[in-house]
């Protein structure tokens, strides 16, 4: 029981009370008016980046980037508390991270305290080198100000990929300057600038080309459920060092995809695989397999089923795959390790297999457009069968051969081919490739509907089912099957259930059951009312509120297909039959209709999503669509004696 919600702000350091200036108070008032639900905001953020020459991995020439950031905050409310934090790691150093407050003379004075320094490993990663430094801040009164300053050192410009203009907090002004020296050729891509007002300028200062970007009155970056990645929506810069002269010679950066590939290959070649240790297992797994596809499947599925995901990503371990023999011995690895192991095993089996880099859908970039490391965050394998590339993702458990997880569809994959490479486009499947097909036959039994249900899952529907099912404790798996058969409806009692093709991911999975749908028939006098339509409850959380900023990410393209039949006694007839509904847009479609033949009513329904996102401009139509679906679902049928 909460004694007092004051406890919510406990644990914050009550620091020296800052004097307030008229300017701070004014800006606080302005920001509060613009962003009424915010408790604090930045009056001014400035970032400046300079470039210098240096040495990197294996003493190779690199460009280093030095950043300096100053951020001044004001409290928009009394008792505004927040942490101000900066991340760093082995490749991006952080120094001189200081906190300033205004003294009585209204000057900013450095506080004599150190930032709290903690590791900050990402979810799902066993170990990485990410750390965070932060100050817990408490500004007692509205208009009180705090300032922070820090320096960053990117030990290699390869890791200096993106700069956002928005932040998790409101900003009155945010200025970014890139001071590019004459010896350096840099490409700066502007992403999502068209939807925001950003001032740009290019000037010259002391022999440097200065690129300046400014944004004013910037709202905080939204954190919303089921949202597309921030890179799809918020303006940012992608900075790529193309080439430079280090005084002795010209050095190549990432001017093209070939340059990026060369760097990846350089790191990949540091992984010393020992194929001999894999040979016995490959021989065992491919015994009796005659075709290349059979061999590929045997090896692919074995890696999926037997290698657990445990990721060590510290330093260059985040870029160089673990050796195939280590991954096999440990029976664990990350995506790089699994892809490396699978690639080697396939090669041993005589297949044309290649290690492959790819960016998931969290990154909206293609290798053809962007030549820097922010384009990739995942590793898979590519094999060629009859000259055709087929991508295999061993991290994606239960993925079938030839099917691709949604998270990489529509992206480009960079395939290793020795000194050459290939960019492979990953196709986006049609909605019907990922299908949940439900067939049910019911009859009325008092207040209940009784009958049988059969659910067939293909594509990613099947994969997702197995990913969840296999991770449930065995003695609870039957409960999960019951849940599937009940469509999340607590009124469905599953009397028996059966799962077919559970071991064969190349076949659709089929779930059958005998069910009783209790409390479903409302009898009033001699009339009976019932519904045989099941609204996909999961869409409820995709209804946009007035305040929503970000597009929805449905995270799939798929098709739901229902064929439901209800048989009533021959002495009865159907009186009310819900009207049909058809809605079709470029991204989603619905077709539902009832047909009656004597004492049998049939509902055929198709709901498909061919585009995985709902843009903000589509919110109005999408909300209307959801209401239409709900109205269709809220229409019951009725029957009465003849």
């Amino acid at each position, binding site marked *: 029981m909460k004694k*007092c919600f004051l406890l919510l702000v406990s644990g914050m350091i009550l620091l020296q009370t800052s004097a307030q200036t008229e300017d701070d108070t004014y800006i606080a008032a302005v920001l509060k008016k613009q962003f009424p639900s915010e408790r604090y905001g930045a009056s001014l953020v400035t970032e400046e980046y300079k470039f210098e020459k240096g040495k990197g991995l294996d003493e190779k020439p690199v460009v280093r980037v030095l950043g300096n950031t100053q951020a001044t905050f004001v409290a928009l409310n009394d008792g505004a508390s927040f942490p101000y934090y900066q991340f760093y790691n082995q490749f991006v150093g952080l120094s001189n991270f200081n906190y300033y407050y205004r003294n009585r003379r209204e000057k900013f004075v450095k506080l004599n305290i150190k930032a709290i320094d903690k590791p900050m*490993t990402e979810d799902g990663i066993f170990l990485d080198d990410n750390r965070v430094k932060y100050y817990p801040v408490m500004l007692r009164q509205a208009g009180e100000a705090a300032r922070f300053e820090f320096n960053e050192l990117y030990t290699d410009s390869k890791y200096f990929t993106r700069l956002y203009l928005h932040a998790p907090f409101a900003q009155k002004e945010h200025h970014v300057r890139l001071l590019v020296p004459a010896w350096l050729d840099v490409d700066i891509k502007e992403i999502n600038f068209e939807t925001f007002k950003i001032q740009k300028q290019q000037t010259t200062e002391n022999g440097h080309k200065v690129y300046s970007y400014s944004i004013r009155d910037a709202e905080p970056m939204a954190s919303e459920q089921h949202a597309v990645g921030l890179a799809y929506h918020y303006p940012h810069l992608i900075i790529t060092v193309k080439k430079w002269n280090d005084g002795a010679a010209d050095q190549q950066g990432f001017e093209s995809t070939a340059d990026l590939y060369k760097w990846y290959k350089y790191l990949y070649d540091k992984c010393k695989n020992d194929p001999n240790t894999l040979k016995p297992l490959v021989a065992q797994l491919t015994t009796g397999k005659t075709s290349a596809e059979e061999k590929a499947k045997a090896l692919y599925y074995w890696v999926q089923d037997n290698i657990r995901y445990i990721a060590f990503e510290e330093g260059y371990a985040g870029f160089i795959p673990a050796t195939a023999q280590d991954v096999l011995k440990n029976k664990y690895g990350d995506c790089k390790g699994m892809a490396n192991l699978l690639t080697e095993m396939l090669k041993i089996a005589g297949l044309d297999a290649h290690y492959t880099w790819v960016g998931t859908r969290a990154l909206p970039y293609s290798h053809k457009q962007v030549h820097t490391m922010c384009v990739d965050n995942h590793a898979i394998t590519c094999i060629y069968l009859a000259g055709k590339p087929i991508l295999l993702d061993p991290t994606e458990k239960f993925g079938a051969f030839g099917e691709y997880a949604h998270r990489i569809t529509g992206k480009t994959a960079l395939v290793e081919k020795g000194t050459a490479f290939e960019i492979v486009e990953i196709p986006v499947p049609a909605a019907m490739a990922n299908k949940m097909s439900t067939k049910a036959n019911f009859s009325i039994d008092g207040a209940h509907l009784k009958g049988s249900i059969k659910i067939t899952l293909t594509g990613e529907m099947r994969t997702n089912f197995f990913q969840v099912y296999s*991770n449930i404790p065995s003695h609870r798996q039957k409960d999960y099957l019951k849940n599937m058969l009940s469509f999340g409806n607590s009124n469905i009692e599953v009397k028996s259930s059966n799962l077919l093709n559970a071991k064969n991911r190349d076949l659709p999975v089929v779930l059958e059951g005998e069910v009783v749908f209790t409390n479903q028939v409302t009898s009033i006098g001699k009339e009976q009312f019932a519904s045989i339509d099941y609204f996909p409850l999961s869409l409820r959380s995709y209804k946009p509120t007035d305040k929503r900023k970000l597009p929805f990410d449905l995270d799939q393209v798929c098709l739901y297909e229902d064929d439901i039949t209800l048989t009533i006694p021959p002495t009865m007839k159907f009186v009310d039959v819900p009207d049909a509904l058809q809605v079709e847009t470029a991204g989603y479609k619905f077709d539902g209709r009832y047909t009656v033949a004597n004492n049998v009513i049939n509902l055929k329904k198709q709901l498909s999503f061919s585009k995985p996102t709902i843009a903000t401009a589509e919110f109005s139509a999408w909300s209307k669509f959801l209401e239409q679906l709900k109205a269709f679902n*809220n229409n019951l049928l*009725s029957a009465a004696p003849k």
Partner: protein
Amino acid sequence: MRSLFIVLVATMVWQVAQGQSSEPFDKLRANVSQFLQQADAAFSNTQIPAEWQNQSAVIIAQKTTFSFDQRTSFRLLGAAKKSVIILEKERRKIKLLDQNAVTLFSELYYDGGDANNGFDGKVIKADGKVIPLELEKSVSIEGDDGVPGIFKSYTSTGDERFYKVPVNGLEIGDIIDYAYQVNNVAGTYGNFLEFTPIYYPCHRQYSVMKQQFEVKLDNNTYLNHRAVNGAPAFSERTEGGYNIYNWEDGNRPIIKQQVFLNSHMQLPMVKFQIVYSSREDARNLFILDRNELKRDLTPAELSKKAAGLLQAAQASASQAIPSVRYHLSKMEVMDANDDEYIKGCYYVLRHIFSVRRNELPGAVFASTMQQLMKMRRIDVQVGVTASRYTTSIKDIIFKSELEWFVKVKDKFIFPPNAMSNLTDIPPGMQGILAYMLPAGTGEATAITLPIVPYTDNVSNFSYQVSMSAANPDHLVVTSQHEHLRNNREGEIGKVMTYEIYQFDDWKTYGGWDDTEAMRPEQQDQLNADISKYRAEGRKLKPQFMETQLKEEFSDVVSYQRFQLTQDGRNPRKPALLYHEDFTLGDMVLHAGKSLLIKLPEFLTNQLQLTDEQRSRQFDADMRNLRTYNYTITFTVPAGYKVLGLEELNQQKENETGSFSSSAILANNVVTIKTTKVYKQLLVKKEDWPKVMEWVDAAYAFSQKKILLRKQ
């Protein structure tokens, strides 16, 4: 600027430099190697019973040992510090039968915070091959968030430094065999120490083939233990000058999920506590004589112990008395009638301790009330019992199991919490045996504590419902919620969130505003701060309550108002009463031109029993007797006729409980009334079908609809 969205939550990991010397890990291994290699038939097993093959994992064997050492460190100033060092070891051998278990055990955790701690393990493959753990790949963890409970020790002192290690070569069908050793130091400044009691249910997260405790103690240390509900007991032997206590148990399958299960009173369990004492100071211990461990304490013995604790609490109580009396005098109840005085004492104690500081320990509360009553020559008796959710009174062996109360003028008064009232009797104390301590040298009196009747534990829900003019598929609702006595306890945590009640608390009982003692500028600052937090609370509260409402209704279209009318903390107004206005979707269905309105669905969260829950292995503990009344009124829209109300009339009743409902139409308003009563506190498993009759009826009712036919 890098993107900055990672929320500062758990999963913080300190890094251990990779590739460092293996010396510390050799030490970790060495500290458990003997334990791991001990010959033990249970651990040599690799086969599991056929009936458990389809489970997630099976504990083949588990052994936990405790042994103790003492150390005295002398200090230049002050008394010598005596420390008790507990060496705890545990070995566990588990067969992993599915992916869930393999995932859970892919990372093992251990406490590496002390040089004498140990950890090691291995994977045993189906073909017998052994793969040792690679401790060198350990990574340290900040805090213990995210460390599964199965890896935490029983004797933790909060100083752990946890590490995690990935398990190599693990697959379904493998056995994992690991052991830890921890050294925990507990300091004592006196001559005794009672460690935190351990309650160990025999049924665990996984089925268990064999489990064992072994406690090795010297003559200054002993084991306070009891087996309940059919669990085996500890056996004792002497060996090499030590007392060895041994507990063995096995063949425990997983228990299926049950509603209304009182696990402490029904499931086999062993409880134990390690006690250190030098004999001369044994008087402070709950169990003074080791022979007492071998039998149930008689009422006289228990009350004598309680009396001793009450005596010991006197000093603390005496310290509390002056400020209580000061409040009472400010309230001018020192000379008021007995009832006002008793009430004043209770609420002042609630105010000073439960609201403003920390709740009074039970014995201190009892002693304080005893002294306060004696000052006014009001008859008072102190009583002790044990909560029904902890143990039965005959099985009390720990001081912490004693629950205290006083009886004044036929009222049973329990220690207050911030929300309680004078007449509250916690559900766990109702209907159970208690002992009233004798005044002087008399005998303790056994009594049965009263059960609050279901007519007192009442919740009244009222919903006024109409169709929205803006959208006829929406229902506009004005609701009122009233909760009394035990029913209030279940709701008050939610309702009081974001409420600042601490500073007005004195008003609820006619108390004295102690902020009067502050300087004017302090008062002004306090009032200003309170106003700010109240304003903040007014903004956050509706959002919070809307979130709570969404747990009950599938589509809350909008939430207009929350109003707390009274929190029930005032003895003159003991009901919790609040109002909400909101709009719901998903409550109106169509059938041609007719409408079906899901009015019965306002009986939210009705218990729906699964197939598994329809048969019981154990009696049902219904927690407390209670009544839920619903009144739902619905204005019939113009142009519609109501049908189907007769389907809503029903009555199901038997000695365990009842559900009744009625529906009428008058003046174009449908009024539905329902009453659900829990009549019996403890229901025998054979009578469970009787409970199902009215529970099923209530649930089925909540799924019904009324029909509006277009005229």
